[in-house]
């Protein structure tokens, strides 16, 4: 297939020598090589001999040093400073908030500063890592990840009825899952079914320690990622049929679980109407609502008539506490910074040309946005799902480090820009099962 030749390689080598960003070499050399072959073939069909045609084709390319220098100027790893700046602002805002709130409760800020530094290190490590490994080793990553989370769950302390650390590590799940979607992109309907099977396997592995909120969160995020891929046409299937294939089983499963589990059902009902069980499931929600309804726009609010304050002021209910203590303005400030970060990131995601790059970066935006939305809803009194963290703002080391790591992965996608070109349109779809010589070959790649 590959009509390569020493002369061609020599030319391409001298072009690439001028381009400092090594990662770009493979993409550039493939394109140039193709061009030389096309040009040579054109000369051959004009009547020139093979070697003469090749020589002329290479001469037509132009001076390799000049071409390389021009390309070097264009291909540089990109650093999205806007994302780094917004993340830093959020991180600083988080430290200020924690300094105030922890001061109120008598804790010291030292640990928060330490976690922020670890978070920055995690972000840099992820940025320097080549994100395409997510698409190269999807099975290894998924099962390795599940094994690690399982291990962490065993050694992790239990907090409020659930294992403490795994839920934060699981924030990496949607991003790892994009590798699976990416792998299935040319397998059609079977690919979707396989995605479902792998989700099922993950859920069974997580069963001993995952909470309902975890399942709901990751099911929604995975469904959004799959929907996005189907609508973008990456899975090569009929859009309506594809949507039915993922949403019918999802809706059936959710209905079945809700009907068969009275506790879960009462939680859903109570989230919408906390007064049904004001002393039990609806207690915190009612108190939260009372506190924020007594809050001012700027300045300290009246709190509750009973004089109680919400527990967990610097972790789960930080925003409720801030709204009470400083007024709605504190919520507006924090939400604006986070919203800006998410909107800017999402815009950059949409500019990505590569399928894997889009999927990975969108999974990061979704995972962080979901945490923000769940957290805000919880702090305004709608407590259907247990909050994880308010990314970059609320207190908590593991959550912060993982979220910073996710930002790093996204920056690593943006670094490559549109150089990663996996947007190959395959005219003949590869078959999952092939029968050859009486053997059934199952192609998992």
């Amino acid at each position, binding site marked *: *297939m590959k009509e390569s030749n020493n002369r061609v390689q020599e030319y391409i080598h001298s072009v690439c020598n001028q381009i400092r960003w090594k990662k770009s070499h493979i993409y550039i050399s493939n394109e140039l090589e*193709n*061009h030389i072959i096309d040009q040579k073939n054109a000369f051959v069909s004009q009547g020139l001999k093979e070697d003469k045609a090749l020589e002329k084709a290479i001469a037509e390319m132009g001076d390799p040093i000049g071409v390389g220098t021009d390309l070097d100027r264009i291909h540089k790893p990109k650093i999205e400073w806007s994302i780094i700046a917004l993340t830093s602002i959020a991180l600083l805002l988080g430290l200020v908030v924690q300094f105030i709130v922890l001061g109120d409760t008598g804790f010291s800020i030292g640990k928060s500063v330490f976690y922020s530094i670890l978070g920055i290190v995690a972000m840099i490590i992820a940025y320097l890592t080549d994100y395409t490994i997510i698409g190269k080793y999807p099975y290894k990553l998924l099962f390795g990840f599940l094994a690690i989370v399982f291990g962490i769950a065993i050694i992790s302390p239990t907090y409020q009825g659930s294992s403490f650390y795994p839920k934060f590590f699981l924030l990496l799940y949607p991003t790892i899952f994009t590798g699976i979607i990416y792998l299935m992109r040319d397998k059609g309907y079977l690919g979707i079914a396989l995605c479902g099977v792998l989700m099922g396997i993950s859920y069974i592995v997580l069963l001993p320690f995952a909470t309902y909120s975890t399942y709901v969160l990751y099911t929604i995020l995975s469904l959004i990622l799959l929907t996005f891929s189907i609508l973008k046409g990456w899975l090569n299937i009929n859009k309506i049929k594809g949507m039915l294939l993922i949403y019918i089983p999802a809706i059936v499963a959710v209905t079945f679980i809700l009907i068969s589990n009275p506790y879960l059902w009462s939680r859903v009902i109570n989230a919408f109407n906390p007064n049904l069980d004001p002393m039990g499931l609806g207690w915190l929600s009612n108190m939260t609502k009372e506190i924020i309804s007594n809050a001012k726009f700027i300045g300290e609010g009246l709190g509750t008539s009973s004089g109680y304050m919400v527990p967990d002021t610097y972790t789960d209910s930080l925003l409720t506490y801030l709204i009470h203590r400083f007024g709605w303005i504190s919520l507006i400030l924090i939400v604006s910074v986070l919203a800006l970060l998410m909107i800017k990131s999402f815009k950059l995601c949409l500019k990505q040309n590569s399928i894997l790059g889009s999927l990975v970066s969108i999974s990061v935006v979704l995972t962080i946005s979901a945490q923000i939305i769940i957290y805000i809803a919880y702090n305004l009194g709608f407590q259907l799902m247990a909050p994880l963290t308010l990314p970059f703002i609320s207190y908590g080391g593991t959550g912060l480090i993982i979220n910073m790591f996710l930002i790093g992965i996204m920056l690593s996608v943006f670094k490559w820009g549109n150089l990663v070109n996996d947007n*190959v349109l395959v005219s*003949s779809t590869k078959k999952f099962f092939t029968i050859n010589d009486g053997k059934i070959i199952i192609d998992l790649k």
Partner: protein
Amino acid sequence: MKISKNLLSGSTTMLLLKLLDNKDMYGYEMIDELAKRSDDTFTLKAGTLYPLLHSLEKDGMLISYEENPDNSRVRKYYSIHKDGKKLLKEKEKEWKIYSSKINKVLEGGVKFEGI
């Protein structure tokens, strides 16, 4: 919008965008097509073409994808993006003004001679 000046004269960008406005093409196809359409007046070197294409892609004017139409070699196709279409319109407008001014000067000269 910033396209480094030393890489291209504006008109080459315009011609490439115009070609891609019709259909998606790969690099060699563009050089070939440009030569054909201009009766071999415009012969673009690959060494000029690719840096130009890559910088247009980097600026979001073009997007690329790989396709393997006849199962021979995977080719990198370029496709014009909406920002690219905008740029093409601007360039065409500029070109029309520029060429009409040139013509005006030339025709003005002719008229003067005519009197």
